[in-house]
């Protein structure tokens, strides 16, 4: 598992960071490291982004490398595809994942297929960063989790970190990757981990091991899951904000679960999934996105195909409901501790 630790955590001094600072640091490191890395998007320049992820970068690297864009996601991604064709490594920001849809043609029909259709003459090494997910009273246009739209596209990689440490290492790997990467940032945990109890005070990253971020360059390979916690009672497959919610629920229930933070959905660390399910014999899949045709369906199917004879109980799937993300009933929508707890109980009964 934790191979990257060998080259990073033990050598480099670490600094306490929240996820925004870690992302900012990753961009800073990569811009310093590679003059071809450029950042563009709405409000990313002087202002530093509505979530401050690009703060200070324009000042440091100049307007040729960090610049505001028109409000046109098709243009942002289309221009990034063109810059990438030239040989740059663009890191476009889409202000909210909910705004990405006007850019889908450029992502799905163009970036994802560039290498294939030109037989490798042209590639699209771009990393599209975008905050996603709910829990901030953003209503239906600032809360969605559209990852399954992208995992369904051949040629796109989809990455979702759950800690500042991983966000930095994965973003660096994504930028270095020669294929297009969708990098979804769970905005609910930008400032601290979230255990799903919306009515308790929010936490910061200060007391969380994932908030210790190595200084300088390090990367976490795409396609490698992280074992959050080893255990034998069940395997929990989870990513993003829900990693922390799952961890809290299982700890509170005293279940010896093995929690696997997938970190990248495509490419998926299938070995980690198989090894764990074969060991525990039970599997719980959790995501915040709507249920029908969600990434959970893919996970359940893979586990069924590859681990069927090791399973001791039906696979459980906990997700958001199949509705748009409501504003006032946000917490009734969110797959919180009660919904997860019930699934855990069902699995433990078998």
């Amino acid at each position: 598992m934790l191979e990257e630790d060998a080259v990073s955590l033990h050598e480099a001094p670490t600094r306490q960071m929240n996820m925004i600072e870690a992302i900012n640091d990753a961009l800073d490191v990569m811009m310093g490291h590679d003059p071809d890395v450029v950042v563009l998007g709405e409000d990313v320049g002087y202002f530093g982004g509505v979530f401050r992820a690009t703060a200070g970068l324009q000042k440091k690297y100049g307007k040729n490398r960090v610049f505001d864009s028109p409000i046109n996601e098709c243009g942002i991604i289309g221009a990034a595809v063109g810059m990438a064709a030239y040989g740059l490594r663009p890191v476009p920001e889409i202000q909210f994942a909910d705004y990405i849809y006007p850019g889908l043609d450029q992502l799905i029909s163009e970036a994802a297929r560039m290498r294939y259709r030109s037989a490798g003459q042209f590639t699209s090494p771009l990393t599209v960063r975008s905050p996603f997910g709910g829990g901030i009273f953003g209503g239906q246009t600032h809360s969605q989790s559209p990852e399954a739209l992208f995992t369904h596209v051949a040629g796109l990689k989809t990455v979702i970190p759950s800690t500042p440490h991983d966000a930095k290492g994965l973003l660096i790997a994504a930028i270095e990757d020669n294929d297009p990467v969708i990098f979804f940032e769970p905005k609910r945990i930008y400032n601290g981990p979230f255990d799903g109890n919306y009515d308790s005070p929010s936490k910061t990253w200060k007391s969380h091991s994932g908030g210790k971020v190595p200084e300088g360059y390090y990367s976490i390979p795409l396609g490698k899951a992280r074992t959050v916690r080893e255990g034998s009672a069940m395997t929990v497959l989870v990513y993003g904000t829900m990693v922390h919610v799952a961890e809290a629920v299982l700890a509170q229930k005293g279940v010896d679960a093995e929690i696997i933070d997938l970190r990248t959905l495509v490419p998926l660390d299938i070995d980690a999934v198989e090894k764990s399910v074969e060991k525990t014999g039970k599997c719980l899949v959790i995501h915040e996105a709507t249920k029908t045709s969600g990434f959970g369906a893919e996970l359940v199917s893979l586990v069924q195909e590859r681990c069927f004879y090791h399973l001791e109980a039906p696979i459980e799937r906990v997700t958001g409901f199949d509705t748009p993300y409501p504003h006032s009933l946000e917490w009734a929508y969110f797959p919180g501790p009660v919904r997860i707890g019930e699934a855990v109980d069902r699995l433990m009964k078998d």
Partner: protein
Amino acid sequence: MAEGPVRSGKPRGNLPPLEFYVPEPRYRPGDVVDYSHLEIPEAGTARRPDEACEANETWPLTTDLIRVLDENDQAVGPWDPKLDPETLRGMLRTMALTRAFDDRMYRGQRQGKTSFYMKSTGEEAISVACAFALADDDMVFPSYRQQGILISRGYPLVEMINQIYSNRADRLKGRQLPIMYSAKDYGFFTISGNLATQFPQAVGWSMASAIKGDTRIATSFIGEGSSAEGDFHAAMTFAAVYNAPVVLNVVNNQWAISSFSGFAGSERTTFAARANGYGIAGLRVDGNDALAVYAAMDWAANRARANKGPTLIEHFTYRAEGHSTSDDPSAYRSAREAEEWPLGDPVMRLKNHLIGLGEWSDEQHAEMDKALAEEVRTATKEAEKNGILGHGLHHPFHTMFEDVFEDLPWNLREQADQAISERRTKFPEWKE
């Protein structure tokens, strides 16, 4: 790039390297603001062509600025809509009410009564005067800063506040972000949180109205920033192709969150100037001059009603406050900009105009402001009886699952039961 094109040996010449250009606003925080570069033509000088004119006859008006109120706030020139004092007072009152409403709702958000708010300070003339110039059943496809239209059409403030609080009485069932109103019975289309999508929709609505031989027209509003979206181009193309009875408005308030209008192309030409390229009539109007806004919308609406085609109107104004409650404008622009905006305050200009006519006074104005503040306060109290965001009095849980489809499918029925059972687990005493 490692490998470039194969070189044929044909020389490019001894040219200097290319330069990358990124627009930069004139003023940043702390800067002294000087608006002397802005060309502000004198009021009354713009020609008023016939409403049925060829689209390209409007070309001079797309770079000019239609202004009716002069520096003494007197109405001059061919665009003076010559409104009666009663109508003028009605517009003034509605603009002031919109401002009073914004102030109260902004404070409510700061007090934690809701998650989000967006003011329209400085832009009240655009919504209100357009609404006054339109028929009440003309269809409006608004962006998020046209609350003045709803208020002009007499939509109850209490209903607006219920929506802002996402409370039990919210007609939109607490589903939408605050201020994303929808009021079909007031000809006000459901506001989207995604930008510019309403522009082609307004064109489509007006095409349908023409298909059916209706007499109603459609109008839509977007900010200059979102005119960069592809939807703008789609709307203009369809409007031109089908000679659609639609009035398309670009509210150029200079700022899209932290991005100044240059990121939508304002350094090269005006937004109104785009119209003629599509074969559409274009007008550029002083957005802080209620009479000019009224006159422009009236001209365009008459043109559309007479089957003479669509118009693009640029309303030149200034966003006097932040984009929303989520940003701090002092982090990206000079605070002096709002103070020194050369086109003044739309409420004050109309007020002074009425005073000049002998139809209004400072005393009456002060009294009106007091009464409006009280009206908003009363509506707020009334709405608060239905709850504020996050304090229990939201819609029944089942409503979350309704309207996804016309009929509730099996999976949503199961999930609705699940949501209610989860609630009972968390709060055993809970009753819907």
